[in-house]
C-alpha cells in the first residue's frame, strides 16, 4: 500500500461520505417519510437486521450474473475473432448482431422466461444476451487494431496465420477485450435483475420487488445497495484478472 494508493482511495470514499451525510441530514431535517426515501441509517439498519436474507438472495443473482458473463466471454470472443478475420462472416453476421442489439432486452425477457422457465436459466440467458454485445464489439475492434508495424515484423519472418493470431493479434487485442469485459460484467448484473423482475422466485431483484410491494423501503434500498456492491465486486474481479493477465500494462505507468 503506497501513499498514492491511499490518496487514490481517499477521494471516492470522501465523495460517498459527503453524499451520505447530506442525505441523512436532508431526510431528518425535512422529516421525509421513510417509505418515500429512507435515510442512510435506515438502510444500514435494515441491511444489518436482514443480512442473512440479503446474503441468501445475493447468491442466485451472483451465479446468474457470473455464468451469463462467462458464457458471453466464452462465446463472444471466438465469435468476434471469426467475424474480425473473415470478410464473409463479417458481412453476414455483423448486421444481424447490430439489429438484434437494438431490440430492448427488457422486451425480450418475457419471451426468454417462456422458453427457459422461472428458474436460474432464464436470468442467465438474459445476462448473457446483454453482456454478449460489448464483448463482441470490443474484441472485434481489438482484432482489427493490431499495430501495422507488428504485422509487418511478423510478415518479414514469414510467420504463419496461426502464429500471427496467437503471438501478435490476440495479445495486442487484450486491452480491448478487457475494456469490453468491464462493461459486460456490470451489464450482466443488470441483465440478471431484469430477469428477476419479470418473473422469479429468488434473487436480489426478487427481494427488491417484494420489499417494495410491502412498502418496506429500507429493505428495498438495502437490496439496491447489495446489488451495487455485487456489481462493484464483479467489476473488481475483472480488473484483478486484467492485472494478472496483462502485468505489463501497469508497469508502464510508473
Amino acid at each position: 500500500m503506497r501513499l498514492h494508493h491511499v490518496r487514490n482511495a481517499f477521494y471516492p470514499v470522501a465523495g460517498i461520505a459527503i453524499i451520505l451525510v447530506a442525505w441523512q441530514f436532508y431526510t431528518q431535517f425535512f422529516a421525509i417519510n421513510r417509505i418515500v426515501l429512507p435515510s442512510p441509517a435506515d438502510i444500514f439498519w435494515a441491511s444489518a437486521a436482514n443480512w442473512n436474507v440479503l446474503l441468501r438472495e445475493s447468491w442466485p443473482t451472483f451465479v446468474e450474473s457470473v455464468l451469463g458473463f462467462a458464457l458471453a466471454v466464452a462465446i463472444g470472443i471466438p465469435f468476434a475473432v471469426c467475424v474480425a478475420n473473415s470478410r464473409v462472416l463479417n458481412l453476414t453476421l455483423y448486421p444481424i448482431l447490430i439489429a438484434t442489439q437494438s431490440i430492448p432486452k427488457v422486451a425480450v425477457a418475457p419471451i426468454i422466461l417462456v422458453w427457459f422457465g422461472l428458474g436460474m436459466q432464464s436470468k442467465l440467458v438474459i445476462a448473457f444476451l446483454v453482456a454478449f454485445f460489448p464483448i463482441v464489439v470490443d474484441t472485434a475492434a481489438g482484432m482489427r487494431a493490431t499495430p501495422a508495424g507488428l504485422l509487418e515484423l511478423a510478415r518479414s519472418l514469414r510467420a504463419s496465420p496461426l502464429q500471427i493470431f496467437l503471438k501478435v493479434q490476440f495479445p495486442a487485442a487484450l486491452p480491448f477485450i478487457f475494456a469490453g469485459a468491464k462493461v459486460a460484467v456490470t451489464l450482466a448484473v443488470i441483465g440478471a435483475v431484469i430477469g428477476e423482475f419479470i418473473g422469479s422466485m429468488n434473487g436480489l431483484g426478487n427481494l427488491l420487488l417484494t420489499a417494495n410491494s410491502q412498502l418496506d423501503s429500507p429493505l428495498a434500498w438495502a437490496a439496491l445497495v447489495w446489488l451495487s456492491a455485487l456489481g462493484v465486486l464483479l467489476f473488481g474481479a475483472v480488473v484483478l484478472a486484467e492485472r494478472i493477465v496483462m502485468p505489463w500494462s501497469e508497469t508502464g505507468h510508473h
Partner: protein
Amino acid sequence: MQSQIIEQGRSSAAPVPFGHFEGVHQHFRRPGQAPLVAIENITFDVKAGHLVTLLGPSGCGKTTFLKIVAGLIPASGGTIQINGRAVVEPQPDFGVVFQQANLMPWRTIQANVLFPMEILGRTDAAAELRARELLALVGLEGFEKSYPAQLSGGMQQRVALCRALIHKPKLLLMDEPFGALDELTRMEMQDLLLDIRAKTGATVMFVTHSISESVYISDIVCVFSKRPAVIADFIAVDLPYPRSAEIRYLPEFTELEHRAGRALGITR
C-alpha cells in the same frame, strides 16, 4: 562472447555479388489517376559485408526499395537477387529494423528479442544465451525482464536491433531506424551499429535522409533522386575503421558530405 556472434556475412569467392539489383521499378496503381511511379530504375550491386546506405529526400522511394529487398512488397519490375537467389517473398535469414522499434508491449525485453526464434521454431538455451549476449552488447544487460514501456526510445531501438540480429541474418535491412531519436542518442546508435557490424560482419542496407549519418556509417552511399527514384550518385566512402566522432571534422568527410549534397541537389 564475440565468437558466438561472429558467424555472418561469409564472403563468397563466387563472381556473383552478394546483392544484385537491376532495373528495379515500382509503381502503385491509383483509382482514377495515372499510376504513381515511386521507383523509375535502380541498378547497383552490394558486396558481402558492406554497409550501404540509401540516402534520399523524404518520399523518394528509398523505404519502398528497402521493403522490396526485404520481400515485403513485390517489385513492379526488375531483378532483386540476394546471395544469387531472387527475392520474391520475405526471407527468414534477413533481419529488419523498422522506423519504429515495434516492440510488443506484452513481452519482456528478452522475449521481444527472442520473437524471431519463436517464429522460426528455434527457441533453445543457445538462443536465450545469444539474446542475453546481444542485449549486453548494446548495453542493456539487466533489462531482460523489463517491459518495453519502461525503456526510452533509444533503448527500445537497441532492443529492436538485437531482435533483428538474434537469428544471425545474412542481411540486415534498416529503415531510418534512428530517425525518431534525438541527435546525441542517434550518434551513439551510429557508433553502436558500426561496432556490431565489425563484430558480426553482417551486410547492412540502411535507409536514411541524413547526409552526415550516411557518410559516417557507410562503405557505400547510394544517393536516390527525388521521386521517381533513380540513382543520383554512388559514393564509395574510404574513411578508415574504426570510425569515431572526430572523423566528422576531417576535410575528406566534409568533401563526401558535399558530394552527397550535390547529388541531392542541395549544394552546388
